[in-house]
């Protein structure tokens, strides 16, 4: 699954990942590969990306998560 975490002026993360966990305004979600198309508002919390080489965590205040075509995009 391709994951992109981007701010307007910089890319925080871009690459292959096994899963992505985030806190949406409705509760916590974990996106696994081949997740159905999904859009959600993110709440304050930590976005965790698990890759083959370990975990990466990103502090998030708000943002939008979009999943489509086996691709997850987090816009901060």
């Amino acid at each position: 699954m391709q994951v992109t975490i981007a701010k307007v002026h910089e890319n925080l993360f871009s690459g292959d990942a096994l899963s992505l966990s985030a806190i949406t305004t409705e509760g916590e979600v974990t996106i696994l590969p081949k997740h159905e198309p999904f859009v959600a508002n993110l709440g304050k919390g930590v976005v965790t990306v698990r890759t083959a080489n370990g975990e990466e965590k990103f502090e998030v205040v708000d943002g939008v998560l979009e999943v489509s075509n086996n691709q997850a995009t987090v816009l901060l």
Partner: protein
Amino acid sequence: MALKDIKLKIKSVDRTRKVTKAMESVSAVKMRKSQLRALSGRPYAAAALSILERMSVSLESIKHPLTTVRTVKNAAVVVVTSDKGLCGVLNAAVIKEAERAIASLELPRDAISIYAFGRKGAEYFDRRGYTIEGKFENVSDDVSVADLALVANAIATAFVERRYDRVLVAYTNFRSTFEQNAVSHAVLPLSLESIAPVVSGIAPEKGKFAVVEKSKGPSFYTVEPSPESVVDRLIPRLVSILFYHALLESKASEHSARMVAMKNASDKSRDLSKSLTRTFNKARQAMITREVSEIVGGIEAMASA
């Protein structure tokens, strides 16, 4: 011209060339950096737009305050120019484009507020009696979205409060190192049709950074908590991206325009210095010839005496 004068002139032309050469190299470096920066915002803008696009069915029914079209009684124009000159027609072109956009609004002068990024635009519109609502000078090359957020929010709030019914932006679009166009378009009220070409045009048409990629999204989404709330979040982001993008494009354009202008100046001064050296050599030769003929004339006169 006396020999000494020509020599001085050559020296001064050479000195000018040193300056223009230096400015050229500096601009070249800055241009590359600002091109990179202009490009880095593109995936974000494209993603935000594509999410919005796919929810556009609901967007029409939502009536977000930033997308409401009203009859235009008051308008704001954001003009992005440079602080300094020496960059060819760049600023003149933006100002002309802004004037054209203002004229097309058909509003009295006092119904228009100007937000000026860059001293040149601020000076121009100030002299002509427009209300300068905001003036921003010395905007650094690596301006961040957070810096812009204050202005973008102020403008958006004013729009929501109906102090402006339309917000335009005039800036220079960077197409390639040798080609920059002054463009203007409406930012508010926000509409998908008006911003789609802007977002797709974020990459330059030619050159190193000209890449085009297009991803197709699915036709439906599971949206949490609701399309409205997601759109609510995306729209202010897109508005600030549009301003941010205009600023970055203008920066890239400014540096490339200056680089080209300085290159022309350097070339011209090289030509001038060459032709002056030729004049100098001619004058020197003429002087030597005159001196020799005077000496020869003197000897002749002495010999015949």
